[in-house]
Structure formats: C-alpha cells, structure tokens
C-alpha cells in the first residue's frame, strides 16, 4: 500500500518536474510537422541528427563520435578554461579591492564602465593582439567573465560583517589569512552568483570566439552549417549548446548547494 502511494507520489513529482517539457516538445513536434517549413525541422529530426553527429560512436569511446571530439570537446574546454581564469582574477581582485572601503568611489565607476563594454567589440582587438589561436579565445572568454565575478565579489566583500573582521584581527589572524578564512567564505554566496552569470557568458563568448578562424568547436560548426544552409545541423548545434549550458549550470548548482549549505541554514533564505 505505502509503496504504491510512494511510487504514486514519485510519479506525480516527475510529472510536475518534466511534464511541461514533454508537453512543449510534443507541441513543437506537432507544429513543425504541420508547418512543413524548411527552416523549422521537427525536434525528432533534430534529435536524430544530434545522435548521428555526436552520439553514435563505438562503445569503447563512450558512444561519442569523432565529431564530438572536434566540435564539442574543444568548445567546452575553452569555455571552462576562460571561465576559471576570469573567475579567479575577479575573485582575487575583488577580495583585495573590496577590503578597502575608501577604494569604492575610485574602483566602481571604471569596473561598471568596462562591464558595460560590448564584449564582441573587443574580439578584433584580441584577435590582433594575441592572434587567432586558443590563447586569444581563452583570454577573451576570461576577460568577459571577470566583470560579473569582480562586481559581486567587491560588493560582497564590502558587506562582510565588520565584527567578523574584528574577530580575525582580535585573534591575531594575519591579513592574507583573513582573506582566505573570513572574506572569501563570507562573500562566497555572492561570488557564486557572479560565477553563475559568468558561466552563461563564457558559453556566449566561446561561440563568438569560434566564429572566425578556427576549424574546431561548436561556434565554428554553427557558422559552417549556416554558410552551407544546413538548417538541420544548425538546429542540432543550437540544441547542443542549450544542452551544454543546462548541464553546466546544473553541475554548478549542485556544487554550490553542497559548498554553501551553511548559508541557507544561517539566513533561512535561498542562495542569491
């Protein structure tokens, strides 16, 4: 009896969670079958194409194809490398600059300004300075990822409870250790929020950086498909990017939830 009820409840939860996704996919399928528009292939066709392109490899290769290794792997690697680099710089600079309240008036306007710069406009500059290579792509992604993290770290560090700092000073904790032991954990929830924004940005910049002068990556695949009017391939690439974005975000959220469980307990509010 109780088992039945339990499975019933689990089924209900599953329907609530994924019911709408299935319904929307079905609607999409019906509409595209009806419309017969060459620009709008059916989701089933897109899924089949994705499988052909990337997931029909031999079992020894974990079912991924050679296309997966040339299109998806380099893209993800670039995005993550740039994100990690930008995140580290943003956190480090933010922790140090945020510590001095007086710096706020001087630091914030330029940071806000640079953050507002349209990042693609910087692509040509990076291209010229660093050349069309992975160094340039990772640097570009890193450059874009710095600002949300930096801004969040700055604000969070300034908002660290002064008594916590006084406690550190009172117990003779040196300044470098105070950054690691007090400022960083206290600012972590906001830093995580910044990192999450940057993760989305990293994917966008990854696509943009692969737009030109590369033979690998999803951005390049997307543009090649567009130039050769392979509509189905374009949709497959878009779906793949969406899937990657979703999975990366999911992984990040899981990590965040684990590391910052104390914040939810302490404040009784969800993470920012």
């Amino acid at each position, binding site marked *: 009896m109780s088992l039945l009820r339990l499975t019933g409840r689990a089924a209900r939860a599953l329907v609530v969670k994924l019911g709408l996704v299935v319904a929307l996919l079905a609607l999409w399928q019906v509409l595209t079958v009806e419309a017969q528009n060459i620009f709008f292939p059916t989701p089933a066709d897109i899924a089949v194409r994705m499988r052909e392109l990337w997931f029909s490899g031999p079992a020894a290769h974990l079912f991924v194809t050679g296309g997966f290794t040339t299109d998806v792997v380099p893209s993800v690697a670039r995005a993550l490398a740039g994100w990690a680099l930008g995140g580290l710089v943003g956190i480090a600079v933010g922790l140090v600059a945020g510590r001095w309240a007086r710096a706020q008036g001087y630091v914030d306007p330029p940071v806000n300004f640079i953050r507002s710069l349209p990042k693609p406009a910087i692509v040509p500059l990076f291209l010229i300075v660093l050349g069309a290579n992975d160094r340039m792509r990772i640097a570009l992604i890193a450059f874009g990822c710095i600002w949300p993290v930096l801004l969040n770290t700055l604000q969070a560090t300034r908002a660290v409870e002064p008594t*916590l700092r006084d406690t550190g000073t*009172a117990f003779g*904790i*040196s300044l470098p250790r105070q950054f690691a032991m007090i400022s960083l954990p206290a600012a972590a929830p906001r830093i995580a929020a910044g990192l999450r924004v940057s993760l989305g940005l990293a994917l966008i910049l990854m696509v943009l950086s692969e737009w030109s002068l590369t033979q690998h990556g999803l951005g390049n695949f997307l543009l090649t498909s567009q130039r050769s009017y392979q509509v189905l391939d374009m949709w497959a690439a878009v779906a793949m990017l969406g899937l990657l974005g979703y999975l990366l975000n999911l992984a990040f959220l899981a990590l965040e939830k684990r590391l910052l469980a*104390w914040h939810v307990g302490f404040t009784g509010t969800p993470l920012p």
Partner: protein
Amino acid sequence: MTARLHLDEGTTSVSAALAVHNITHRYGPGGPAVVNGVTFEVARGELVSLVGPSGCGKTTLMKTISGLMQPTSGTVTAFGRPISGVPRELAIVFQDYSRSLFPWLRVRANVSFGLSGLGLERSERRTRVAESLAAVGLTGHEHKYPWELSGGMQQRVAIARALAYRPRILLMDEPFASVDAQTRAELEDLTLAVHREFGMTILFVTHDIDESVYLSHRVVVLKRSPGEVHAERVVDLPETRDQITTKADPRFVAQRAEVAGLIRDAALGSTRFSLHPTE
C-alpha cells in the same frame, strides 16, 4: 582542574594587567570627543565591570582598549607594554554572537579559529578545543553549526573560542545584552566559574547595573557626551556569589542602589558639567 598560575615577567615594575591612561577618541580631526581622558587600571586576576548609560562611548572605548582601534591620544598598556594592535594575551567576547561566530564553520572549527595563527600542534589544538567546550558545558555539540544553537549556547561558543586562545586578559563587550533573563543569569555564573578556573583578568562592559555589581570586584562608572570616568567603586561582597543569596544580600542591594545613583548622576551631569564644549 587546577587554576592556572601566570608567571609574569617584569612583575616588579608593573602590577596592573591592563592600564588605560588618558584615552581620548575623536571621530575626524577636530570632531567632538566620544571618549575623553579615560583613565583606569585593572589588576592581575581582577574582574572589573565598566558600566555606563547608553551613548557613553563604551563600544569605542572597548575597541580602543582591545587595540582594534587607535585612540586619538592616550595609551593602553597590557602587562606594562604599550599596545598597538591586539596583543597576544588578550581575547574578546563580542556582544553580538550571531555576527562574531562564523556561520560557515561548525562549533569545533569556530572554537579553534583563534588557534590557527598560533602554530600549535594538531593534538594541542584538539585538547584546547575540547577543554574549552567542556568549560562552557557544550561538549557534544562540536559538529553543529552555530545557527543551529540557541542564543545562549552561541554565546557559550564565543566564550569557548576566547578560552581556547588562553588569554591572560578577557574583554567582554556587553556579552549578554541580547539573551533572555534566565540565560543571562546562567551565563553570568559561567563567567564567574571561568574566572575562577582560568584565573585570567576580565574587563566586563555592560549597561546592566545588577550584572556589574554581581560579577565584579570593582565597578567603573562612565558618564556620557563625552565618555569620561565618573566614579569607581570597589564591590564589597564575598568572593563566591550566588544568583539568589547574593542578590538578596543587603550589601548587594545597597551597592546596587549606589551604582544606580552614580549612573543617574552621570547621565544628568553630562550637560551641567561639560568642561569641554565642542570647539
């Protein structure tokens, strides 16, 4: 546990554990003085209460004495040495436990926090943490987060953290201001027990008159605007105190009334005898 005896170097030259000499603090150059020429001493092993009406610069004074803040003028010496920055032999229990405990650390890590800069061995750290938690009656709560505990228990964690640091001077800044009356009485007795057991010098800041008389050997009364020492009174009560019998003792009642009168004078006198009008 045996009471610790501190062998103080240079005992001959100085007798005070803490000497506050002519401390004045202004916010901004030429600004009004928040604390004005405060002078008093705390002898070794003594428990002194600093009591005054709100706005008498208690917090500023506390930060200055602890070395968290530089006074505009005047000196603070701990065991004969002028302090700049927080001296090693001093630990603080802050008023607001919910802000001074680290919410991301469990009780054990919070208590051993102060030990991380001392270069102690792992086993020594563990011993100290266990001893301190036992002293405040929190054994068994090591793996909880502070926010999972009641307010009184959180303040016990903060006291344990200070104890683990093995300070020779303990500064307590209105430590029980935000707990209920019952818990406050328990924590007061805990303070007395800790003082007996560890034998350190304690400076206790409070705005509660009962508390100041009940706890201490001596009461220093401050007056406000600017904060100055108004009076000092030695508390004439037996060394062992009890929440019920001591507070019913006629001597306690009389001294409590006297301190209350002093504080009222201090509050009134602040305007009448202002010798230092703001320039």
